[in-house]
């Protein structure tokens, strides 16, 4: 393996959460009864015409700006022609040789930072959803019937294509986390793989380490988490290296990654030719974003996650900053720091407490500062209520935990006396028992003891000769 390096490029599809579909006014979203969010346009009735969704265009420009793309002066929608029941027009409206966003670069921070380039990002419409019924497997082959739900058909979809700049499964996962967080920060998509609002295919090849050749690649599809994408890439790399080292060739293929068996299985493709006969969509005029519009959208960009990670890394170190930002806890963190909480404390608080969206962070900061003196109950109830109207830290600050050692010392001694076996075990090296003793003292005090003080007292007693 040392002699080989992975060459990976990703194609990411993101559902935009616009209120309406890409080319008609039907509402988007999940959960409606099948085929209730449809109209002549998204059902491809004769004579129906597409009209491009302005918000989707603007959001795609924002995404392009966030990943450093050049915004095209003239982007052209194109028809991608193929027959399939989930594609009612017989063509998908996409962009081909004149996409909206061209190029781009993203620097991914971390212990081993790396940069990656983008080929393009373009706007298109999603296909409808096909459900295969009967035959047991839920797959097309062997199914008795196929049903189509056109609710999803026509949902705006951004396709982002990276350069083959990724060198490991870990880099792929980290890049995807950062990209996802960027999309979420822009407010243009929920970008959830489990709901299908973010999908990712990987193009994987290997080459002798240090060379710059591009060898035959495999396309991996249907991976439904970042972790599985990483494992799929690892599996493909292992297999390709085996093939090359055994003297065999790698042939171009598309595979599905099966996480249960950690194997790649050949992808069953739609019955279609590869020639999509792209041509400019004559029903739509080209998109020509005015420079003023692009500048307005640039001005609306929030602090981007990559920048946020670099900024927070000064106080927290890059890994904690990464964890904070990519788990979307950075807004809470910033609110707490603004409220006067020390950075490390604010980080711990934001990472460990389930702070609700819309929390009053200025008030919650007061609670966070006093956290170590509060009872657990008071703390958790303060956090839970922090988004409520009229939430006031003062209501909780009085519920302090017992930290008076003269009050706690007898309880600690009683607990140790009642558990001589565990005391002996601890002194014999079972450090983990400390938690047991803490728990016992907490039980005695009804959870009102200051855990830190109890810890200190216990250690003192247990480690006394």
């Amino acid at each position: 393996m040392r002699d080989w390096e992975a060459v990976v490029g990703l194609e990411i599809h993101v559902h935009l959460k616009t209120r309406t579909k890409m080319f008609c006014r039907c509402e988007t979203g999940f959960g409606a009864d099948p085929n209730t969010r449809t109209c002549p346009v998204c059902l491809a009735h004769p004579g129906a015409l597409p009209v491009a969704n302005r918000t989707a265009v603007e959001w795609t420009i924002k995404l392009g700006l966030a990943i450093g793309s050049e915004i095209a002066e003239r982007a052209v929608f194109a028809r991608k022609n193929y027959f399939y029941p989930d594609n009612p027009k017989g063509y998908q409206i996409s962009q081909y040789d004149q996409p909206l966003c061209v190029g781009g670069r993203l620097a991914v921070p971390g212990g081993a930072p790396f940069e990656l380039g983008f080929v393009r990002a373009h706007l298109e419409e999603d296909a409808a959803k096909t459900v295969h019924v009967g035959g047991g497997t839920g797959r097309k082959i062997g199914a008795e019937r196929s049903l189509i739900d056109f609710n999803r058909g026509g949902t705006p979809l951004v396709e982002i294509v990276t350069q083959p700049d990724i060198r490991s499964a870990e880099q792929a996962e980290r890049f995807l986390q950062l990209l996802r967080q960027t999309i979420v920060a822009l407010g243009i998509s929920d970008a959830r793989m489990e709901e299908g609002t973010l999908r990712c295919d990987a193009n994987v090849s290997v080459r002798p380490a240090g060379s710059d050749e591009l060898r035959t690649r495999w396309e991996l599809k249907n991976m439904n988490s970042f972790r599985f994408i990483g494992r799929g890439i690892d599996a493909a790399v292992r297999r390709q290296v085996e093939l090359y080292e055994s003297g065999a060739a790698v042939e171009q293929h598309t595979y599905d990654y099966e996480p249960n068996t950690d194997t790649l299985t050949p992808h069953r493709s739609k019955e279609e030719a590869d020639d999509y006969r792209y041509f400019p969509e004559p029903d739509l005029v080209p998109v020509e974003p005015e420079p003023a519009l692009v500048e307005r959208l640039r001005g609306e960009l929030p602090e981007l996650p990559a920048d946020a990670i670099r900024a927070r890394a000064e106080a927290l170190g890059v890994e904690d900053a990464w964890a904070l930002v990519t788990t979307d806890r950075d807004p809470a963190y910033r609110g707490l720091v603004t409220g006067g909480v020390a950075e490390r404390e604010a980080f711990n608080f934001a990472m460990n407490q389930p702070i609700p969206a819309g929390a009053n962070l200025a008030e919650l900061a007061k609670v966070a500062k006093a956290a170590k003196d509060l009872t657990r109950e008071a703390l958790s109830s303060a956090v839970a209520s922090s988004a409520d109207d009229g939430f006031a830290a003062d209501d909780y600050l009085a519920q302090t935990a017992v930290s008076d050692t003269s009050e706690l010392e007898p309880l600690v001694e009683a607990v140790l006396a009642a558990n001589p076996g565990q005391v002996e075990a601890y002194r014999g090296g079972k450090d983990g028992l400390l938690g047991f003793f803490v728990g016992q003292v907490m039980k005695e005090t009804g959870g009102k003891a200051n855990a830190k003080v109890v810890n200190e007292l216990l250690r003192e007693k247990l480690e006394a000769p």
Partner: protein
Amino acid sequence: MIDTLRLTAEEANGLLTRGEVSSQELFDAYRAAIDERDEELHCFLRRCDGEGEGIPIALKDVIGTKGVETTAGSKILAGYVPVYDSTVAARCKARGLRLLGKTNTDEFAMGSSTENSAFGPSHNPWDPTRVPGGSGGGSAAAVAAGMAPWALGSDTGGSIKQPAALCGNVGLRPTYGTVSRYGIVAFASSLDQVGPVTKTVRDSAFLYSVIAGRDPADSTTVDVPPVEIPEPGATDLKGLRIGVPVEMRDAAGIEPGVADAVARAIALCEELGAEVEECTLPRSVEYGLPCYYLIAPAEASSNLARYDGVRYGFRAAGDDLTTVYERTRDEGFGDEPKRRIMLGTYALSAGYYEAFYGKAQQVRTMIIREHAAVFERFDLILSATSPTVAFPIGARADDPLAMYASDLLTIPSCVAGLPGLSIPCGLSEGLPVGLQLVGPQLSENTLFRAGHGLEQALGFDFVPERLR
């Protein structure tokens, strides 16, 4: 007694506003004419009892009408009833125009004779052994035979102008983008335009004003300048600079009777005060037809992909998806759509795209520029609409290339997106000859002014001789 053969829409409106007839009486008069003549002429695919208090109207069957079957002359759409109105149908309804019926068309508007209709050909009211032209032969013949005061057609490469010429009425193909295509069964999206088929130029201008204008549902529509209906009786063409493209005047295949009628019209233009000079459109005339027959089939091959038997219209039985697709399309489409789907698919295929579709787009740009250069010197250009008068049914049915040549003179301006007006300018062998006026983009008002002036001076009797 209402003489629907002679009554113009303007006159019908006069009868209504003066209270001389009720809208129901007017409607019934046209229905009676349909009962009397349509068995012979077969202009209507279906008759309607539309709503409204205004003038009746007939719509070509590519124009989608809510609740009224719309087949585009194809078996594959048999039984398809739109759930929505096309924008033009809605605009007609909003003005009270009452739907008489849906008129016959070549299948998906592909043809120049209506012989490609899956439901049988229409016949020319001047001579029922001859074609009414196409694809909108049903609308043109219905207006000529007094079965509708006016009608709407659609024009991709001449489907309004050519039948109007062959049936002796006025056909306007408007500037691309002035009339919404929303709800029109698509043939070739970058070429399709809806327009009026009428007895007079004033009727044409009025009906155009009803349907034209930007439509939020069609992104390719534009704002349209206010329509000026020409003053009744005004014949003055002073100040108009009219060009006569020599390649169109001298094209091979122009019948002598057609050339004579056009020459007389040219002389008349000069008498009315216009400046007439020769001009040239060499590349537009030479390459217009081949350019069109790459672009239109390419777009059609994609536009017709939606007819797959899955959601609406005709579906053939089959054991699996591919069989259903293949049988549905094999049995549902006639020969001409199949021919054009094959041509277009080929022209767009990898390896052929640049040589065919790509090249055709470059030629299209060249044709647009060549016309623009001519319109720096001229307000209008003038030619015959069709090289021939109406030809006998069956004469070109087995020769697609001869049929395609019917549109030689109408196609260049269609490819360039320009407006064109065909008015009758005389008879040859007892059959109408059409005169085509073409202007730059959005020059409809100029076309109406010139067309009306010529129409007045020509005094053509639009009632077919055998029906007088």
